[in-house]
């Protein structure tokens, strides 16, 4: 088990190096760099760029050097915890990202809770009442949720929330709270705004989770140990929660790997539509304007979380499911 862990940790290093090369290459693939994009953008709106300032920044950040030198410079910084400099914000990347992480975390975490809270009961109910009319109705609802484009739902909800409830459009709180420290009023305002993104981002996830839980559970419910337990007179609810439901959970645990980066990145498109102060729109903007240190370092951070997440979920699976643990042991 220990050598397995060490092996898994060591393999992360080449993985991360490969990812960093891919990220850097892709960001640099489009023609030009941040400054040429910036100049073009300004000129298209009729503004002139301050060329002296741009010449200064270009020289400072080595834009005149070869690509591989720029790459080494970036990676070298990352190893020291220096994520580089965002040209669009005119600030170190750490500061730009830092502020948004908390709100992203709140949105994503609430969304996950919402997804679980809805999907679990519904999934279990549909599986145990397979092909009843309630199962059909819930399935239909689930598919509707899966099929509705989330940005459309977002716009519709925003409109009604503004016209009937007087909630300001977009954002995660009323404007007057944005730059205030946390208080009861601010938390209330966040709560009033939070439900829209949570429902919108959550719907698609909820539907797919219901389907997966239902399918997994159905597989288990057919099995002989369930029949046996039932024959022995175990209380149906106790039976359900103690055996087949636990078995059906395995896929969710292996999901943790992708969950971790998801919590940080937020849902980019919905966040853009709703103008949420989360990291999704920031990343999209950075990629579009080729703000390369901001985009690169943030993607790298997410890649790192994904790798960690997969590692954690593998371990969790082994810990939780004796079959996986024992099989691995037997092979050695």
């Amino acid at each position, binding site marked *: 088990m220990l050598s397995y862990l060490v092996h898994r940790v060591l393999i992360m290093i080449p993985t991360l190096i490969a990812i960093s090369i891919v990220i850097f290459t892709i960001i640099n693939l*489009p*023609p*030009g760099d941040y400054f*040429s*994009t910036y100049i*073009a*953008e300004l*000129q*298209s*709106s*009729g*503004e*002139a760029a*301050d*060329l*002296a*300032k741009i*010449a*200064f*920044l270009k*020289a*400072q950040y080595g834009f005149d050097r070869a690509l591989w030198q720029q790459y080494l410079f970036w990676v070298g910084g990352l190893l020291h915890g*220096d994520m580089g400099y965002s040209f*669009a*914000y*005119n*600030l*170190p990347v750490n*500061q*730009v990202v830092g*502020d948004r992480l908390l709100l992203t975390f709140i949105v994503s975490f609430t969304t996950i809770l919402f997804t679980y809270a809805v999907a679990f009961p519904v999934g279990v109910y549909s599986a145990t009442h397979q092909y009843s009319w309630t199962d059909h109705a819930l399935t239909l609802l689930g598919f509707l949720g899966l099929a509705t484009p989330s940005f459309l739902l977002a716009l519709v909800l*925003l409109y009604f929330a*503004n016209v009937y409830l007087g909630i*300001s*459009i*977009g*954002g995660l709180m009323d*404007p007057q709270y*944005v*730059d205030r420290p946390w208080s009861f009023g601010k938390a209330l305002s966040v709560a009033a705004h939070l439900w829209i993104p949570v429902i919108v981002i959550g719907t698609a996830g909820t539907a797919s989770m219901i389907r997966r839980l239902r399918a997994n559970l159905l597989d288990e419910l057919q099995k002989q140990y369930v029949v046996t337990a039932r024959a022995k007179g175990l209380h149906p609810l106790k039976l359900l929660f103690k055996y087949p439901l636990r078995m059906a959970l395995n896929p969710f645990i292996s999901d943790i790997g992708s969950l971790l980066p998801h919590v940080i990145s937020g849902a980019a498109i919905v966040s*853009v*539509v*709703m*103008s949420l*102060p989360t990291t999704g*729109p920031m990343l999209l*903007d950075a990629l579009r304007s080729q703000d390369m240190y901001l985009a690169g370092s943030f993607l790298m951070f997410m890649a790192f979380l994904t790798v960690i997440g997969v590692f954690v979920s593998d371990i969790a699976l082994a810990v939780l499911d004796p079959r996986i643990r024992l099989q691995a042991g037997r092979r050695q």
Partner: protein
Amino acid sequence: MRTGLAFVAAATMPSKIKAQLQETPTLQDDVTSGKLPKIEERVPIEPSVADLQTIGTPGGELRMLMSGPKDTRMMVVYGYARLIGYTPALVLAPDILKSIDVEEGRIFTLHLRRGHKWSDGQPFTSEDFRYWFEDVAQNRHLSPSGLPISMLPQGKGPQFEILGETSVRYSWRHPNPLFLPDLAGPSPLFIYRPAHYLKQFHQKYAEPEKLDALVKDANQRNWAALHNRLDTMYRDDNPELPSLEPWILKTKPPSDRFIFERNPYYYRVDQTGQQLPYIDRVILSIADSKIIPAKTGAGESDLQARYLRFDNYTFLKASEQRNDFKVRLWRTGPGSQLALYPNLNVNDEVWRGLMHDLRFRRALSLAIDRHEINQVIYFGLAIEGQNTVLPQSPLFERGYRSAWAQFDLGEANNLLDQIGLTKRASDGTRELPDGRSIEIIVEDSGESTEQSDVLELIRDSWRRVGIKLFAKPSQLTLFRRRVFSGETLMSIDKGIENGLATAAMAPSEFAPTSQQQLQWPKWGQYYETKGMAGEAPDLSSANRLKELYEEWLAATSEDEQGRIWHDMLQIWAKEVFSIGTVAGVLQPVVVNAKLRNVPEEGIYNWDPGAYFGIYKPDGFWFEFSEAPAQSAAIPPPAPR
């Protein structure tokens, strides 16, 4: 000759009126507690007196929406505190300066207002000018490229003299007509800096250990990077940087909400002696640009035009009642909303020959139904015609706009036949001499669907003279690259930027002077790089335009400048280097129903204009219901 021409601020208050200065209510507490000096000591001894439509009451908050952290610079654009600035009639007048003397178009003497102070209360003097000129602009660490181009007529910098605490003089050997317009620009040439603040970050003045510590703290590489980071007069993202603007930044970035508070040392007062700006705070909320029209419609902005487009008008108008605002329509300044640019530097030789043929360009222009475009896309509210100066410009002549702009398919066909493009393919498309059919791919920057809509209409009418048009939306950077390298045959983009030009403004857009000019990027690049890159113009009319531009640069009187302008506009009209469609498309401006002194009709333009800047938002004020309705009905300003 413009010898000894002087610009004097029209309304400089005689000093005896100082007794009437009134303290701003919101600052009263700070004054009583001693945190701020009294108003008499805050405003300059000779303040600038605003000439306002209605006298306001101070107070209130102005909310605006912006789309990104870079947009804090808009407060410098809107604030429009300039050494010398444009009035709404587009005349240059001293603003921060008390007066300015110009001799022979080359010697500029600037006189500051006595007692003018930075927003932190420190005096604003000639030292601030010296610091920039000697220690910033000519420091090779801070300004690797040296003095800005508009201070280098014929490549030579000025001689700089300090004539006292409140006077400085710049003398060039040649006339410098670019200097004053650049000082008045929306993104101005800042020839001064708050020296007392920035010196602590300058190698020449700071103690080395202290400076090193500061550099390290700020996570910068060296002192120059730190100085550059903090010296953001235009971008306005350093709350500690002293300023002369009406509102000064109070929020440290990054944020999604930026608060600007009134500058207690501002240099302008109204006719009754109240210090401007009237409005206490300006709040910029950051939202995605696509959601801004919706948020504006929901009443979340008190003054908004940026990120609103003409096609949002109906939606905004529908929410007017519910959210208590007014939608006004202002004219925009470009010479044409969209113009077609035949690329005279296209790589394909056959095509290049055709593009160089005057008759071909004229025929393409004649085969566009501008009236239809106007009716279908702009509700008939725009001005049809070529890509040239607008009727509001003093240089305007009807002929410039109407030349070759009528819809005349017969004449267009005639011209094309004359060129010899008589062979046609089976579907009626004309053929090039080498047998290829005439299919013009028009590229655009892909920023909006407006281009595609206009092209759709042009396609139909060009079809009738045997020319096929294909629209190809691209991506901004890529689009420009392809045009610059000669791969693009024709492009569609905004027309000339300054449709409101006066004789004193540089006619650079009408001559091959920049790579950004989509009809002749390589010729422009040749001029920009002084022949190092690009190609020399090989069309006599283009060369003539360049000569005229150089003559304009050397001209010393406004008459001479005007004559050159007209020569250039005539060539421009005759040659159809760019094909205009419609101009003066209206810009929706959403104004809170309680906000006063915002003109009913105005020009929404970048330069000259600075968007709201020339209307001086420091004089805007909120009329709340408890105040007497002395000026409920504001007469619209005289049409210009």
